[in-house]
């Protein structure tokens, strides 16, 4: 049997939105991923430490309270420092405050080194095929 791909899941910063995180964890587990869910109120370091220790293939960051831009800055650089510079990092949620064009928001995050950026209301079914593809799975 092929080894299950491991992904790290959590809600970054001072954000305590726990429900979407659980739903996402459930959806990922159902489709064959090994989910390491580090929960809410999570720092960049905790995401990265978890990924190093578990040998994860991707980090999925949620942020729903509007402060994601501040919380996510420098995350890719930290991953590089930790020796996992090539790891996939996704982010999704209410990523900025106020109404801004999605293209603009996406660009902010891809410039920070995030591989994929998802707007509010994205369903797990939209993410899963892309995750499999990026991880080189069928």
């Amino acid at each position, binding site marked *: 049997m092929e*080894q*299950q791909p*491991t992904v790290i899941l959590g809600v970054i910063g*001072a*954000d*305590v939105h726990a429900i979407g995180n659980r739903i996402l964890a459930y959806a990922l587990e159902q489709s064959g991923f*090994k989910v*390491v869910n*580090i929960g*809410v*109120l999570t720092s960049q370091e905790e995401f990265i*430490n*978890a990924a*190093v*220790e*578990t*040998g*994860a293939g991707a980090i999925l960051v949620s942020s729903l*309270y*509007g*402060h994601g831009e501040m919380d996510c800055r420098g995350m890719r650089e930290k991953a590089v420092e930790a020796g996992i510079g090539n790891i996939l990092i996704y982010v999704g949620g209410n990523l900025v405050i106020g109404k801004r064009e999605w293209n603009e928001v996406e660009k902010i995050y891809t410039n920070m080194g995030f591989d994929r950026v998802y707007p509010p209301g994205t369903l797990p079914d939209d993410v899963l095929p892309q995750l499999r593809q990026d991880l080189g799975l069928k």
Partner: protein
Amino acid sequence: MELALLIDFGSTYTKVTCADMQNETIVGTARAFSTVETGIMEGFLKALRDLEGSAGLSSPPYKYKFACSSAAGGLRLVAVGLIPDLTVEAAKRAALGAGARVIGVYAHELTGAEVGKIEGQRPDIILLAGGTDGGNKDVMIHNAGMLAGMHLEVPVIVAGNKSAAEQVKAILEKGGKDVRVTANVMPELNVLNIDPARETIREVFLEKIVAAKGLKTAEEYIDRVLMPTPAAVLNAAELLARGYGEEQGLGDLVVVDVGGATTDVHSLAAGEPTKAGISWKGLPEPFAKRTVEGDLGMRYSAQALLEAAGVQRLARICRLPADEIVGYVEKVGSNPDLLCSDDISRTVDDAMAYTAVDLAVERHVGKIDVIYTPFGASYIQTGKDLTEVKYVIGTGGVIVFHPDPGLIMKGTLFDQARPAVLKPINPQLLIDRQYIMAGMGLLAEVDPVASLRIMKKYLEEIHIEQGRML
């Protein structure tokens, strides 16, 4: 009368306790100066003569003769892992729980310089962890390669990623090392599984370390050296907290042991948050948790204690001029067998003991951090909440032989001025007057009920007088 002889080979004293298992009493205790260099048996036989003399026994038949040991520097262990907060911390906790002295902690890929440092530290055991099961393999494999080339004959216990364990074993064996593979200390992220590593450390201690520490001669007279002394104390504390069969335990408790070189704190409690609305972060806490403060001790570590606390803090407690304190600390630091002799030395010793207890318990217990979020304040607890612990037990020479140990034990208590530090608020204080905790940890291996009942009988309740200060 059915007697058990319980021996604690320490680094400076050998302590013997004789317990009557039928009547559940302590027949006598004695101690004598002894070191590995001067011959461990000499001190032991002297203590035994004193004990038998004062108890009016002459070479009675002992059903059991068990010993624990912290002689020759204790069980010296180096822990190696991957991430400091994760597998390194897990390995450290396993080692402390086994009663080891953790003399070095290494994270990430070992360098040549670090391997040189380990060679210089001359540990008795190396505990190698790294990676969750199925997680990172490279680092532990790299570290095995580095350790395999080390010019040091030392057993290596592998307690890391199971998917890499066999390869790691092969690498180390090729380097001529004695390798034991046990279960991963962190099989999944933030899940601790330290008992198998604890057991393996103890096995290696029994097989190899006992002989290496010059204790084999003692085994001709006694039945066995069973475990390192701190493991015996933790064993006793766990039995006392949990109870055994019909015989009830005391429930959640903390044991504080102030020694010449270190201050040990053991907590036997789950430590979950006691107030609503607090999230618990960090590694899960073992029910039986031991921490050791190598910089808080009465003699060997007196200087380090002074540095950790600051002379002003000690001066404030004992109301003596700073230079007098500094002078005394220097004196006892270089003469570890010196006992306090006059009022001034007694006052400084009391202040040092109080401070050691205060800091050691503070480092052991959990803390509450407040994080301000857009939705108001969030409270995060890391470590154990011990505010509602029912008993705090004091042991170690400076507490046990003190005329008013409450003065020192006050340092274990919750401080209104620092509510984020989760120390016990209103526990019953108990003193190990007869110095029996380690012995009872040994007796617990064969007769837990007698051991438990004896502890309940002999640990002495004390009360702190309101307003009395050091």
